[in-house]
């Protein structure tokens, strides 16, 4: 398992980070934004202001480290539902994400020009879309690379296999990032598969690598290599990011019901944010002052997003029929009229 930065924040012997110090600071900021947003979103959900929310807590290095290797102008992200900082870093607006969690359908879309696919609830289905998208970019001689995310649980679905095999045959410019956070709700990684996930890639004829998913620098290195490979026309890569879910599965979940004693405590020692902060501090690039400053900026950024989202219009009856068909059947048009009558015309 490739590691560059150990849990204590020291570089492992001989390791040469590929991510510059400046960009490491940038990465840290994204990770901290993610962590802060998780806390805020959870609080808002508890107040009944947001719908079900799935935090990224613990997996920030995997999500941020991988997406830092992408060029938002040409590259694409095919998310699962737990990759918020990657989406924001790629250009998706935080306020629209919040609006989505607030159920504001009309205001939650991904704006034109931002190369992000919608979150996917049906596990692993997005991998097929991602393989097709990458293949399509290649056919059209477009420069983009697709980064597709899924959990180690989702990787048990048939769609994972079909998507990887198709991408392999087409030598599509795609990177599969497997967020191996040890849990699929209450199902442990051991019950999910008897094999190592990264080894599956060999069977599809492309490279598989396993990295310490709590190590921003290691994840970035693997992702940068993979993106380079894809851009050069050398096909897909599977990155097995071994990380930990430091929170509940989502706001409806109670991990107390299934986490073994001490698991969370042990996992917290792997915290991906702490180790980067220690590392940067050792480089003289981080101290309490910078922490307070960054935390302040982030709090403002989140406040602004929440306020903007709150100001957006709430969903109305007619939204049920928006964007279903480009050319709706007559029968559906009539149903819409009927609903508008019931809703008193909005």
């Amino acid at each position, binding site marked *: 398992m490739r590691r560059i930065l150990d849990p204590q924040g020291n570089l492992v012997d001989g390791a040469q980070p590929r991510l510059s110090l400046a960009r490491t600071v940038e990465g840290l900021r994204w990770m901290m934004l993610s962590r802060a947003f998780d806390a805020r979103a959870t609080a808002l959900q508890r107040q009944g202001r947001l*719908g079900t929310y799935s935090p990224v807590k613990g997996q920030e290095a995997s999500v941020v480290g991988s997406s830092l290797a992408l060029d938002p102008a040409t590259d694409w992200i095919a998310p699962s539902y737990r990759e918020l900082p990657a989406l924001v870093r790629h250009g998706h607006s935080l306020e629209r994400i919040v609006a989505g969690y607030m159920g504001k*359908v009309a205001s939650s879309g991904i704006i034109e020009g931002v190369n992000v696919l919608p979150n996917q609830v*049906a596990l692993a289905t997005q991998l097929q879309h991602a393989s097709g998208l990458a293949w399509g970019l290649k056919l059209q001689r477009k420069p983009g690379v697709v980064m597709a995310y899924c959990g180690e649980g989702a990787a048990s679905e048939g769609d994972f296999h079909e998507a990887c095999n198709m991408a392999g045959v087409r030598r599509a410019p795609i990177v599969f990032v497997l967020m191996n956070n040890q849990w699929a709700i209450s199902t442990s990684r051991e019950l*999910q598969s008897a094999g190592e996930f990264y080894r599956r890639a060999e069977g599809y004829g492309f490279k598989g690598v396993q990295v310490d998913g709590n190590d921003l620098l290691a994840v970035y290195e693997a992702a940068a290599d993979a993106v380079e490979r894809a851009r050069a026309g050398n096909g897909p890569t599977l990155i097995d990011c071994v990380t930990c879910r430091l929170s509940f599965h989502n706001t409806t979940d109670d991990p107390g*019901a299934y986490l073994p004693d001490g698991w969370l405590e042990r996992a917290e020692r792997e915290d991906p944010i702490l180790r980067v902060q220690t590392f940067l501090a050792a480089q003289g690039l981080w101290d309490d002052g910078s922490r307070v400053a960054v935390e302040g900026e982030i709090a403002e950024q989140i406040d602004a997003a929440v306020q903007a989202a709150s100001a957006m219009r*709430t969903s109305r009856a007619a939204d049920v029929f928006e964007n279903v068909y480009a050319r709706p059947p007559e029968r559906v048009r009539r149903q819409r009229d009927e609903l508008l009558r019931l809703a008193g015309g909005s």
Partner: protein
Amino acid sequence: MAQRNIVEAIRDGLAFEMERDERVIVLGLDVGKLGGVFRATQGLLERFGPERVVDTPLAEGGIIGCSLGLAVSGLIPVAEIQFLGFTHQAFHQIGPQLGRYRFRSRGRYHAQVTIRAPFGGGVKTPEFHPDAVEAQFVQTPGIKVVCPATPHDAKGMLLEAIRDPDPVLFLEPQRLYRKGREEVPDGDYTVPFGKARVARAGFDVTMIAWSAAVEMCLQAAEDLQREGISAGVLDLRTLVPLDVDGMVAEVSRTGRAVVVHEAPLSAGFGAEVVATLQEEAFYSLDAPIRRVTAWDTPYPPASLEGWYLPTVRRVVEAARRTVAA
């Protein structure tokens, strides 16, 4: 006798049958230590051990496909699909495999498998979780499709399902899981498939529904009562087998019917109910049978489900129109 809600009735039924018949095993996502996302299997792992209560890898096709093989090996699997909307991933293993294995093997093998799956809206779940796709399984013969609406039926029909040599898709109304308690016998009893239940007697119009929609019809009947309209409610209980005679008897008495379901209108099971009634009870119908359903659009985000699902108001309006016609 004890008071139980639907989840408790199902839990009790599972425990009872696992105790009674050691061939019965439970498998699915998070059914073990967590006890299922709705806790319907809570306590089973501790009581029956990890060989009979199994957290599987995350693959619905595998859960169902392996259940077929487990059945051939001599066991009686009760598979949980976390939400009915995810049976899509196992669609090719349900009707075409479970449903046809007896026929394909000329009777040598059969798939005594029960698939439990919560479904239905109104509880602000994410996409796919509320989808009501029951009608899709009626087009693949060989599978029985049952949908209890009360705690008593939930346990009785679950025991009937597990003991039925034919594969059964057992649909659980998540909205009603903890809605209310009623008397549910502790021991053994079954509710036979193919017999609809008169949930409320009425003389002017018959409202036909299944699963959570039954409760909505009962509320509508209350409102209609105040307007002096006597509306009956028929709970179909099972879509396959369908109680054709029971439906015809009720509707022939009132001459008027309204069908209510949470699935989209087009090709929903309501169409089968209406088509069957007009074939079998044409001459006793005094008015067109109306369907009150979700629209022909995808299930929307939770903030919109109130505008998507049938409502008591829409049911009442349809009943009024039907009676006035």
